């Protein structure tokens, strides 16, 4: 043992084990919803507060893994003292709010939003919107017969601030040919309700690729790539996250699209199996939708912490190897 002076003195042992700093109790807010008093955390939205009371608020442009854009306006509720209705999905609770979620004004607005969408957009693959339409008694037929669909590329070329004056004999729609320009997914903007979800998923909310954005103005607004180029020429990396969030089937796996075209798509014959993506170490959860022993599409549950339902091209579309091409033939040479 050396008796040299110790040139380094370790600090004294702490008298207590380090603890995380104390968290203040989350502030809470008292408000009234449909006559019921409720206390919720101060950073909740009206939508969350309604949910805590078991009130089912319709939403179309809202998704828990995306920033609210509050554009569809189906979730509006009546707030005492406010001149207009307010969107439940984005409006944060305030003390003393007095909210009605089923007043005549609320019901009328929801019904009209659904009629406006139903009379201008093909909602045949949007089960959620259909259910709401039934709930609120929407009657999209009362705007007259739908206008003939526009030709290929016509809506993409519309100029802002100019339109052909209608004669009123038909109701204008967004009907147009499907965009089929790659093997992985199709874009059927005749089914697009312009909920902005795909744009958000492609942007800072998930993918950060910015391949698509809203273009045009007013009723001629549409989702577009840069310069309206086909997807293979765009910045798209085929993560499919836009498909994952699209509420109307406007964005659809090519495999689903082809099966539907042949009349073969049948959800009652499908199973859904959750597994972990085999490609990399991130470990995203994949839900494999299987029909007739073939994977027909891949989704990912929103509530999984790992990527909140977002995937990359490999997990989303790289399933063909499972079907194995000729593997079956190899394993059973007799046929």
């Amino acid at each position: 043992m050396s008796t040299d002076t110790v040139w380094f003195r370790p600090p004294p042992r702490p008298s207590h084990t380090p603890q995380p700093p104390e968290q203040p109790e989350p502030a809470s807010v008292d408000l009234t919803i449909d006559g019921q008093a409720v206390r919720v955390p101060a950073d909740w939205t009206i939508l969350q507060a309604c949910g805590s009371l078991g009130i089912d608020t319709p939403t179309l442009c809202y998704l828990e893994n995306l920033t609210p854009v509050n554009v569809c306006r189906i979730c509006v509720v009546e707030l005492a003292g406010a001149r207009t209705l307010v969107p439940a999905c984005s409006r944060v609770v305030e003390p003393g709010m007095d909210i009605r979620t089923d007043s005549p004004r609320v019901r009328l607005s929801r019904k009209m939003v659904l009629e406006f969408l139903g009379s201008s957009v093909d909602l045949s693959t949007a089960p959620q919107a259909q259910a709401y339409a039934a709930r609120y008694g929407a009657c999209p037929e009362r705007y007259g017969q739908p206008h003939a669909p526009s030709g290929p590329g016509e809506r993409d070329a519309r100029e802002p601030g100019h339109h052909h004056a209608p004669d009123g004999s038909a109701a204008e729609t967004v009907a147009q040919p499907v965009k089929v320009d790659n093997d992985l997914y199709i874009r059927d903007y005749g089914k697009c309700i312009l909920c902005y979800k795909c744009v958000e998923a492609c942007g800072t909310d998930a993918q950060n690729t910015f391949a698509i954005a809203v273009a045009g103005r007013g009723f001629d607004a549409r989702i577009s790539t840069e310069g309206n180029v086909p997807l293979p020429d765009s910045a798209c990396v085929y993560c499919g996250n836009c498909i994952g969030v699209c509420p109307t089937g406007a964005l659809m796996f090519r495999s689903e699209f082809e099966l539907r075209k042949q009349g073969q798509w049948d959800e009652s014959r499908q199973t859904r199996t959750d597994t972990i993506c085999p490609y990399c170490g991130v470990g995203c959860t994949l839900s494999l939708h299987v029909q007739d022993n073939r994977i027909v599409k891949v989704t990912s549950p929103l509530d999984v912490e790992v990527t909140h339902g977002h995937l990359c091209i490999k997990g989303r579309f790289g399933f063909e190897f499972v079907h194995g091409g000729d593997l079956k033939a190899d394993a059973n040479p007799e046929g």
Partner: protein
Amino acid sequence: MDLHFHGPKPTAAEQAAVDSVLGPPTSAWAGGARNIEDEGHITLLGGHAARSRRDLLLPALHAVQSRFGWVPPGAVDYICRRLTVPPAEAHGVVTFYHLFSLEPRPSAVVHVCDDIACRIKGAERLCDELEHSLGPEREGHWKRSPCLGCCELAPAALALDAGESPRATALAPATHADIMGLRTSGEERHDSFESLRRSVPQCGDPKLRLLGRIGQIDPESLDAYRQSGGYTALGRAIELGPEGVIREVLASKLMGRGGAAFPTGRKWDAVAKAPARPHYVVCNADESEPGTFKDRVLMEGDPFAVIEGMTITGFATGSERGYLYVRGEYPLATRRMRLAIEAARAAGLLGANVMNAGFTFDVELRSGAGAYICGEETALFNSIEGKRGEPRNKPPFPVHVGLFGKPTVVNNVETLVNIPLIVSLGGEGYARVGTPGSSGPKLFCVSGNVARPGVYEVDFGISLTDLIAQAGGVPDGKAIRAVLLGGAAGMFVGPDKLDVSLTFEGTRAAGVTLGSGVVLVFDESVDLGDVLARIAAFFRDESCGQCVPCRVGTVRQEELIQRLRSGQPIGSRDDEASLLKEIGQVMRDASICGLGQTASNAIESALATLDPIPEGKSSR
């Protein structure tokens, strides 16, 4: 940001046009030395410095549009590299504004106003003549336009010539011969300031407080402005100190003149007290409400007053930077405001240490690119920031989260021109002008079938009848059929209600609105059904398209009006009336912004009392 560029390379001319705004590229990611083509799809690390200049997107696009008459894809791609903007988003921005074109267009284009005031002064005839001499509209030599803000001189047109030295000329009243002459002469036309007297029938009246200089002094001379009392208010404001100024503005009970009538002092107070920094001042000069032209006349005739008003606002609210957002269709106002900013800066009235009083304030002018919705304050912020002009949801309000996410005071041009007056008269002195509920002088934009259309300055309290009488009444002994109060977003008033007092409280009591001060008079010869159809088309064109009630509601409203006009209602006319009510209700209740919320006001008010589309008188 991982951006992908595939577009065509810019030509040298395209690059030069962009560089004229952005300066030469300084690094590889900005399109400088490193060869992006060889590297293909690369990660461009623009960094904060580039991203934070996204607000230069619109100025760069303007430079390209006015150089070539359209926006070629190579130029868009180059701008995107320079500013680290995703090309898809830039596409979204270019296609939002009607002064930009992504398709090749003739370099000379005439925009012809076919909006309400011009329709009743022969706009359709002008369009027919142009069709005859320049070809059909779709060939692009001429184009219909919403209100060009020259309604007092209707019909109006705006001639844009792209090129190395681009020209923009407003013509009002516009004749076919004028337009064709301008196209062949190729000269720049400068109206003298005296010609503004046509727009201010009261010109020369010594009692005028807001319009006093217009048409009387040279708006391009700072000396003339100072000799007529200009900039004494700023000196007085500096003596009062920021809090003192806000006290006076609160005491003046000044209400915003942009349409929403919000108390200006309260807005200022909130911004001055907001802890976040920096603060911004925005002057809303996007004036696009059909029938409104007062802000144009103020900017063309008294630009220094606008700057002085902004400077006092900046001083009071602790803002060092102001933005003046002028609509793109106002070439002369833009020119005079630019000159005024430069002159004020040179004289130490803008910049660091204004008037040697130790505070900094400077103003930057931004041009709109053809979108009524950008007059909505939050859409205007987005537009300045280089985004699509889509309104934001409120709350949060601009006083807390405004331009670039910072506390922002946004005021209309006319509101700001009242500020020097308030400082000079004192808040209480100002509040004694007008009525208890509506203080101060007010500008009205009187147009349509009156003998002397123009901007009128009156003290609040005058009745509609008296104002119309002051404008010379309806010519040719015709009777008044209706008056549109407040513009397309306002309401129709029938002949039985002309005694309404033109104050905030008086119009509220009568169930109408002052809006931006539009008084558009229609005599008995006007087809109101045609006017309603134009209003419906206007909202359908100008909706930003963000929210369902307005995006689709404005379409359904226009279709309904056309069904009534062609005598082919779905069900009965009463069915249509109740359908319109429901369409109006959802737009009013559930739209994000004031455009959708007011889009059915005028139409519903006309149908309720004026029988604008008489049954059995099908117009087709």
